[in-house]
């Protein structure tokens, strides 16, 4: 008799995820369908109030702005991460560069965000340097707007994009770039037509690792953001802790989770079908 050891080996993880992941999510889903309690908590009466509130124009505006910030952050992150990962993969001191990328994780996440206030603040490093150099006369307000949030979110996401890209690029056969050049491709063409298609899996992972955490981020807009950069995550936190509207916080969370899941599914399907489509196209030519 062959025993299925797989289930036994994964039992601890299954238990862990059930207790600390699946059950909490089910609780959130449940809360979202109840009535708001007077002083926080819920009244156990079924209600769709929390979902009706989602169609509030103010919330939809926040959602659009969150989407905008997440998309721009993802684009910036990927644009910075690909060359960095490429450089590290070709460098002789790979370990050193990887080490530098991992170092920030030794510091608390919040402290790293506060450090950006010291850099971009009105009395911060950048302003002081620019004033000393005579580029500007008075300090410029860098913080508390959409772009400061995007800057810091990009910073936060970079390691999560660089690491998967690095591991893909490291496996890439660089002689393919020489072959492309040999066959008449310019440097840019060899990157675009040969490198990028061959590291697509790394790019996909990097995009997902950047977009999903950014979309649900709450600390960065809270600390660095202003009125124009309220994100969905901020609202969830506010509804939960300040407004004490648990059902609304939950319904937003559920909506966020569903949107992200659908987005991820569409994205990975699109990636797959596009490859398939290209193959079909090539068959068509013959």
């Amino acid at each position: 008799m062959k025993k299925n050891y797989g289930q036994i080996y994964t039992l601890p993880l299954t238990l862990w995820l059930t207790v600390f992941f699946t059950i909490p999510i089910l609780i959130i889903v449940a809360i979202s369908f109840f009535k708001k309690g007077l002083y926080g908590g819920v009244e156990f009466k079924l209600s769709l109030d929390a979902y009706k509130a989602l169609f509030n124009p103010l919330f939809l505006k926040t959602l659009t702005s969150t989407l905008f910030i997440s998309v721009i952050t993802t684009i910036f992150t990927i644009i910075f991460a690909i060359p960095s990962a490429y450089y590290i993969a070709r460098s002789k001191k790979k370990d050193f560069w990887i080490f530098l990328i991992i170092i920030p994780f030794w510091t608390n996440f919040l402290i790293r965000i506060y450090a950006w206030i010291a850099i971009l603040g009105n009395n911060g490093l950048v302003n002081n340097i620019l004033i000393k150099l005579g580029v500007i006369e008075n300090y410029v307000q860098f913080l508390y707007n959409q772009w400061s949030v995007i800057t810091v979110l990009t910073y936060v996401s970079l390691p999560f994009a660089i690491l998967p890209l690095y591991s893909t690029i490291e496996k890439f056969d660089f002689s393919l770039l020489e072959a492309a050049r040999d066959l008449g491709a310019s440097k840019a063409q060899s990157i675009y037509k040969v490198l990028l298609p061959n590291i697509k899996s790394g790019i996909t992972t990097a995009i997902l690792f950047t977009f999903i955490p950014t979309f649900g981020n709450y600390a960065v807009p809270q600390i660095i953001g202003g009125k124009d950069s309220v994100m969905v995550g901020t609202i969830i936190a506010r509804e939960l802790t300040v407004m004490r509207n648990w059902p609304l916080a939950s319904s937003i969370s559920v909506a966020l989770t569903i949107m992200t899941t659908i987005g991820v599914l569409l994205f990975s399907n699109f990636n797959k079908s596009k490859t398939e489509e290209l193959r079909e196209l090539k068959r068509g030519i013959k």
Partner: protein
Amino acid sequence: MIGGELIIDNVSKDFDSVRVLRNANLKIKPGEFFSLLGPSGCGKTTLLRIIAGFEYPTEGAVYLDGKNIINKSPNNRHVNTVFQNYALFPHLSVFENVAFSMRLKKESNEKIRKKVTEYLALVKLEEHVKKMPSQLSGGQKQRVAIARALINEPSVLLLDEPLSALDAKLRQQLLIELDAIHDEIGITFIYVTHDQQEALSVSDRIAVMDRAEILQVGTPFEIYENPANLFIANFIGETNNIKGTVKNVDDDIITIETDSFGDFKIFKDKEVSIGDTVKVTIRPEKIRISRERPTDTDLPINVLTGRIDELIYSGFQTKYYVTLDVNGVTFKVFKQHIKYFMDDTPFSWKENVLIWWYAKDSFLIEVK
């Protein structure tokens, strides 16, 4: 197509102050099948990469049809390369791999389809157009690489050890096909290899390289029969080396005295004087093995006696390692089996035999 004329003019290359190529000079004729032959690390691949444009020479120039091309980027040279590891694009089908350079030039689909089909037919891969590189065998991959490089109609095709990853049988077959393709399209081939058999069998001319230098340039016949130095004699095929001192010089025969087995005669193909220290080489297949002294020749010959120490039968020939009675020097003797069972009774291990060769079959390599 017309092949390009390539001139390597005093090219040197340093990597981190190590000279990997020293004053290379070559003139490769249009349409020639030219080989760069040498052990690994001799600089042959570096020279090829300089021609392709992947390396920039520290000194010197490369002229293609009269124009210095060292400042041109690889995509602007009328030269294409077949890489050692094939370097096929894994994300593209066989068809798209071959079409790659035409797609860059934005040729029409119709034109691309026609030409790709033509070149895939040239390398006998018509049936595999739709496959991805990962679905091909090593030999098929190399054919795709060859078609992909040729479709650009380069005036020079560079081949960087293109067969080294294939097994011996396939290597032989592809080599013959490569030679046929060369004859058919007539462009200049520059073939880098460390395998002397490959180089000898297909090249019009060969440049033998070692330790960053070109040692000899010549036809396969010249390289094999008249190697410029001991390194080449030993690198190209197998040989027996004899060291000695010139004892006597006649009109066309030199007598050389050795420490190990007395005197022997050699044809005078270089000027020597009595007392010179010389090195002589004699190819194993030119030495005969027998039980009796040869009587049917008037030409000067050398005869030695010894015992068969080792005997390696390999079908078409047998290799004998004959150790001389005096001083224990071992000679390699290769006997071709031309007539099945019609040779004399086979020689056996530990048998005492005579070995002999014509004086004109051995030659002087180094004179000091």
